[in-house]
């Protein structure tokens, strides 16, 4: 920067120089690489095989977390505003059921919309119809439930934790009520296509993963380069200052929760397509994995801080940990115990690094 001058004389800029900033995701990326390398070494040591040099495994790593990843991208935005969304897992369950019912084939004599209580609404029309319908219904229903979350939070001022906890319980109830606990199966192949993989240079690439990355890129752009993003950060950083700066906080929060809901809806669509069915207990505790991914990725539950790139890396860390343990043939119970510790450890490393920086 040149020496700035103004009418008053010269501005002294002595002792000032620009600093190079390292992106905050770098440290979390290093954590990811570290964990992957540990599994690689352990792999040779314990099972005598490479962890990473396996196409199948690499695609599974992302596949099994892609659905929570889609939710995590949404919940990251909610967390940046200083809130939290606990309802996503239940929403996924309910929406997967509804979506599945819109994608059933006539091969299934017990298809939901062929049942008398639904058939009277003329819904049997959707049997064997275009896969666009279930997708659209899932996304819109998610956005609507998210909108309700936002509306309650904005209009009543109750903490997001409580509002979304209510939605979490109710949506799970809806999922069970919808078919009285029965799974919705035998789905249209045009629809389940969405949940399958295609081949890219010999790599099996699940379409869910592609959807996850597209969603992440769109939301990253929205958070970094649009007014929507700027306001999201502002509200989380200081709600009072945001209000005085002319931001309509209520209106904006409704948008953010609707976006989070929409992404939960999309996750429900992808899950139903992949599982080729809808089941009322789908998505249980997905909300916690999503929140964990966001927090591992550097989002702060006190608001104002968080990035989609971090969340994507956080999601992949969760995937690596899960497949790493399976690969090492660690029992499922141990996996969970250790996973909890790893979530905390990843965040501790990050917090420690941040503190060291600010104490400089």
């Amino acid at each position, binding site marked *: 920067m040149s020496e700035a001058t103004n009418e008053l004389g010269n501005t*002294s800029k002595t002792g000032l120089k620009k600093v190079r900033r390292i992106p905050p995701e770098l440290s979390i990326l290093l954590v990811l690489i570290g964990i992957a390398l540990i599994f690689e070494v352990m792999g040779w040591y314990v099972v005598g095989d490479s962890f990473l040099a396996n196409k199948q495994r690499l695609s599974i790593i992302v596949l099994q977390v892609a659905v929570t990843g889609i939710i995590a991208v949404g919940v990251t935005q909610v967390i940046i505003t200083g809130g939290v969304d606990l309802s996503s897992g239940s929403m996924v369950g309910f929406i997967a059921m509804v979506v599945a019912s819109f994608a059933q084939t006539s091969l299934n004599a017990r298809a939901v919309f062929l049942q008398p209580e639904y058939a009277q609404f003329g819904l049997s029309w959707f049997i064997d119809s275009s896969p666009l319908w279930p997708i659209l219904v899932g996304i819109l229903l998610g956005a609507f439930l998210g909108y309700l979350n936002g509306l309650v939070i904005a209009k009543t001022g109750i903490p997001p934790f409580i509002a979304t906890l209510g939605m979490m319980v109710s949506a799970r109830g809806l999922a069970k009520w919808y078919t009285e606990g029965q799974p919705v199966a035998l789905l249209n192949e045009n629809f389940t296509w969405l949940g399958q993989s295609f081949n890219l240079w010999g790599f099996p690439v699940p379409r869910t993963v592609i959807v996850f990355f597209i969603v992440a890129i769109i939301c990253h752009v929205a958070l970094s380069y649009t*007014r929507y993003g*700027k306001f999201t950060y502002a509200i989380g950083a*200081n709600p009072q200052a*945001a209000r005085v*700066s*002319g931001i309509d906080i209520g209106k904006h929060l409704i948008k953010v929760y609707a976006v989070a809901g929409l992404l939960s809806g999309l996750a429900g669509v992808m899950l139903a397509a992949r599982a080729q069915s809808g089941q009322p207990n789908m998505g249980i505790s997905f909300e916690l994995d999503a929140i964990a991914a966001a927090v591992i990725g550097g989002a702060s539950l006190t608001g104002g801080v968080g990035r989609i790139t971090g969340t994507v890396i956080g999601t992949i860390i969760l995937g690596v940990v899960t497949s790493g343990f399976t690969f090492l043939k660690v029992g499922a119970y141990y996996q969970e115990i250790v996973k909890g510790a790893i979530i905390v450890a990843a965040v501790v490393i990050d917090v420690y690094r941040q503190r060291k920086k600010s*104490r400089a």
Partner: protein
Amino acid sequence: MARSQVISPQTMQAVRNSGAVAQSEYLLEVKDVRKEFPGVVALDNVELRLRRGTVHALMGENGAGKSTLMKILAGIYTPDSGIFRLRGQEIRLKNPLDALENGIAMIHQELNLMAPMTVSENIWIGREPSGRFGLIDHAEMNRRTEALFERLGIEIDPEIRVGKLSVANRQMVEIAKAVSFDSDVLIMDEPTSALTDKEVSHLFRIIRSLKADGKGIIYITHKMNELFEIADEVSVFRDGKYIATHNSVDVTRDDIIRMMVGREITQMFPKEAATIGDIVLSVRDLTLNGIFKDVSFDLRAGEVLGFAGLVGSGRSNVAETIFGVTPANAGTIELFGKQVVVSSPSVAMRHGMAFLTEDRKETGCFLLLDIQENAQMAVLQQRYVRFGFVQQEKLRKEADEMANRLRVRTPDMAEPIINLSGGNQQKVLICRWLMTNPRILILDEPTRGIDVGAKAEIHRLISQLAGQGVAIIMISSEMPEVLGMSDRVVVLHEGRVTGILDRAEADQVKIMELASR
């Protein structure tokens, strides 16, 4: 709160005794202190000597390094190097608790109280008296607060929540809290930036009695007249370097300014005559229950309307209501000839208003975000957005220009705003509102914590905006600022307008009379 924060009387006593053994001319002596932040040399081998029973003023432009040195003395930052002697003995402070135990207490530049807690709880946090079963003895705690307040002549209810207090009263609580440690060294970082003359003289009475008790006080301020009233000695820093120390009786205001900025600054309050235009804002019988009542006035284009009054007179509240932060219970607001229900700040902004608030930490800064984001947040409501996308390049250019004009001292605009000195944060907030090109600009303590040079620049800006037909409401606790800048002065007392004075008839005596009636 951690019990370990309690400072035992024994430790305090031991510290005092050791001091008595190694008597030295100075209570506190620091030398060759250096502190670097990424991209900034905040302190470059500075020195400072504080005698017992004196007030030592520390002056310097925004970003000169004053607060940084004080935070080092309070154990918050660790210096890169430096020698520290307290009562003749070399010390190394490891953390804030360590500093307190050594007898150094500090009133910070920004308020640090917890709004949802009571005054008592805030003062004694970490040092709560415990009663039966080791539980906190609230009655005893309130008694101690009352005793403390009585000694200091402060009239605030110990059991009221801090969030309910005005900024000035919060500052008084901070002062009382710092005094309650009974430390030998008391650091005050711009304690009067939010106080009116009445509380300032109250504070000075407190300071004089502390002096009589043999305490040493380091006093940071940007207000020259305070310097000559209260300080015995003055040291000046510039750009992180030590310039000189003098007895305050040996120097003039101009000497100090020359040392601070290295050049002359004349004309403190240059409001130039502007053509006064039509009425743009007309307020009638505005009422906010329990706060102010029946406030009426007109504001014209090109006019600077000063708001004067004591703390608690409701000046800031009226401004907040006009801007829609706390909508009125009764009364009307007419903007550009049309009646408008200003139900929120966004409504106010749509009608061309801008509002710089008084408390930059609570309602101003987004401390987690960088300078650029902080500067541009308000303008995004109206400009520089296409199809939802922010036009970052144009914004960056405008913010840069504005920041240079106000002399924001920073390596670059991507720096987190929390790393700026207090005065520089204030300048960024002024940038934020100027970028919105307001037609009605409400400024609540616009030069709070701002150094003399930048202050003159801000006054020049206000004057220039008025010349362009912007209507300005300026709230200020500094009488010379109100008198120098205002075309008319609205005086409030306990939530009512007690008089509106023209520039020609306004003087300090008249205003004080109306303000305390």
